[in-house]
C-alpha cells in the first residue's frame, strides 16, 4: 500500500494535474474568502466553506479521474494486480494519495483562519474557532466522499474524460437528493431520500452544528465507495 501511495502521490506532481488542482483550489478559496468575509467585514468563514463545496464538486473529479482508468488504459494494472498487494491496499493507496493532495489544498483554509483570528483579536473580539473546526472537519469528510466516489467511477471506465464527467455527474446527483425529495409526494419515501442528502448534512457543518451522526454518515459513504471500487476491480478478473 505504501508503495502505491508514494507513487500515486508523486505522479500528481510529475504531471500538471496536482499543480492545476492546487492552483484552482487556492484561487477559488481566496476569491470566496474575499467575497464572503473580507469585503463584508464578516469574521465567520462558514460561507466560504459553503462555497468551496461547489468548487470541490467539480474540482475533485479532476484529481481522481485517472486513478483507476489510466491504470487500465496503460495496462499497468497488470503490474499492480499481479504483485503481492491486496485489492484493499491498492484502493487505499490510491485513495490516500488523492486525499493527501486534497489535504494540502485544505491547509490554506487554516492559514486564512489564522490571519482572520489575528485581525479579529486586534480589534478586541474573539474568533469562532469552534465553528471553524466544525467546518474544517466537514469539508475534509466531504472531500473524502467526493474522492472515494471519483475513484469508484474511474474504476468503471478506461477513459479519463468519461471518468471526470461521470464523477461530476455523480457528485451533482449526491447533492441533489434534498431537491429530489421535495418533489416526492409520499412522505416516508421523501424522508428516506432526504436523510441520504449529502449537501444537507454538509450544510449543518457550516451552520456550526457538529453532530457525530453526520460524521458517521460521511465516513460510511467513504467506506462504501472504496469497497465498491474493490468489487469493481475484482469483477474485472471474473468477466
Amino acid at each position, binding site marked *: 500500500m505504501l*508503495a502505491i501511495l*508514494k507513487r500515486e502521490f508523486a505522479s500528481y506532481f*510529475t504531471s500538471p494535474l496536482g499543480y492545476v488542482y492546487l492552483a484552482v483550489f487556492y484561487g477559488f478559496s481566496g476569491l470566496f474568502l474575499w467575497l464572503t468575509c473580507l469585503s463584508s467585514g464578516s469574521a465567520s468563514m462558514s460561507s466560504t466553506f459553503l462555497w468551496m463545496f461547489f468548487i470541490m464538486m467539480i474540482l475533485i473529479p479532476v484529481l481522481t479521474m485517472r486513478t483507476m482508468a489510466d491504470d487500465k488504459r496503460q*495496462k499497468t494494472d*497488470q503490474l499492480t494486480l*499481479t*504483485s*503481492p498487494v491486496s485489492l484493499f491496499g491498492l484502493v487505499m493507496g490510491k485513495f490516500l494519495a488523492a486525499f493527501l493532495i486534497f489535504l494540502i489544498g485544505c491547509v490554506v483554509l487554516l492559514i486564512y483562519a489564522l490571519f482572520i483570528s489575528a485581525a479579529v483579536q486586534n480589534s478586541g473580539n474573539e474568533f469562532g474557532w469552534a465553528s471553524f473546526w466544525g467546518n474544517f472537519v466537514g469539508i475534509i469528510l466531504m472531500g473524502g466522499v467526493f474522492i472515494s466516489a471519483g475513484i469508484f467511477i474511474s474504476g468503471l471506465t478506461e477513459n479519463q474524460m468519461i471518468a471526470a464527467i461521470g464523477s461530476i455527474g455523480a457528485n451533482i446527483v449526491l447533492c441533489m437528493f434534498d431537491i429530489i425529495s421535495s418533489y416526492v409526494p409520499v412522505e416516508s419515501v421523501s424522508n428516506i431520500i432526504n436523510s441520504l442528502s449529502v449537501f444537507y448534512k454538509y450544510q449543518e457543518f457550516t451552520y456550526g452544528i457538529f453532530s457525530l451522526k453526520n460524521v458517521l454518515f460521511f465516513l460510511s459513504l467513504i467506506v462504501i465507495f472504496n469497497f465498491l471500487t474493490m468489487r469493481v476491480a475484482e469483477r474485472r*478478473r471474473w468477466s
Partner: protein
Amino acid sequence: MIEVKNLSKRYGNKLAVDNISFSAGESEILGFLGPNGAGKSTTMNILTGYLSSSGGQALINGVDILEEPVTAKKDIGYLPELPPLYLDMTVNEYLNFVYGLKKCKLPKKSHLGEICSLVKITDVQNRVIRNLSKGYRQRVGLAQALVGNPKVLILDEPTVGLDPKQIIEIRTLIKKLGKNHTVILSSHILSEVQAVCDRVVVIDKGKLVANDTADNLSRSLSADHKLTVQIEGPSKEVQALLSAIPDMVEVHVNRNVDKTVTEYELNAKEGADIRREVFKRMAARNYPILLMRSSELTLEEIFLKLTTGDFYGNTDNGGTK
C-alpha cells in the same frame, strides 16, 4: 513449481482456454507456443492471478493462485505482452516503486543495480520511460519481472519489437535465468522456442495439442524417412530414376534451383535408408548430387502440422509418384 490442472477460461460463450493441464519443474524453461488468439496470454494472465479461471487450478510452488493470491504472487515475476510501465517515471523511480510493491527484502541498491546490468539498462536509469525506445521499454519490463528474484518467471512474448541483436541478447539472458528460475515463455516465433526452451507446450484454439521436448516432437512427427536432394540433370529422368528405388514412397519436385539443377523431396518407407541407393543410381548416370540432407521436421512444420493437421501447409509442391 508450476502445476496447471484442467484449467478453463470462458469469456461469455467463448471458451478461450479449454481444459489445459501441464506442469513446469524447477530450473526448466517451458515454451508456450500457439497461433494468435490461441489462449496463450489468457493462460499466463490466469497463472499470474490477473484473471481468474472459470475452472481448474493453477498452483505456483504448491500454492493456489486463487486461494492465496498474495503468497503465490510473491514467487512470480511477470512480463505481460505490453510491459506495464508508468511512462511518467524514470527507470530508477519505476524499479524502486516495483521494489516496494513486491515487498522485496533484498538489499535495494545492489539488487536493482544487478538487475540493471543484467538487462543492460544501466545507462538509461535516469531517463523518463516515455522517452525510451521500444527495445529499452521491453528490457525495463523484463527488469521489473526480475525484481525480488522470484522463483517463477512468466514472460509473454519477451522479444517482441526488439532488433535481431537484442533478441539474441534477451534469449541468452533467458537461458541464463533458466538455470535457477522456472521460466514460462510464450511466443509465436518458433525458432525462438526451439533455441531457448527445454520443453514445448503447443496450444491451439484453447486446447493443448502437444507437450514434449522440441526434439521429441520433431522425431515423433516425422515418421517417414525424408531426404532433401539437389541433383543436376534432366528433371523428368532423374525423377523416374528416383521413383524406381525400392522403398521409395514419394518423390516431390520442390523447385528448380537453376536451369539444370532441381531440388527434390524424397519420402522413403519408415526405417529405410535410401541414401546409398540414391548415390549409386545418380553416379551410374553421371548426374552429380549437389546437396543431400535429411529433412527432419522443423518446429515450424510441426507447428503447422499440429495446428492445421496439414504438413505441407497450403503450398503447391507438385508432387508425383
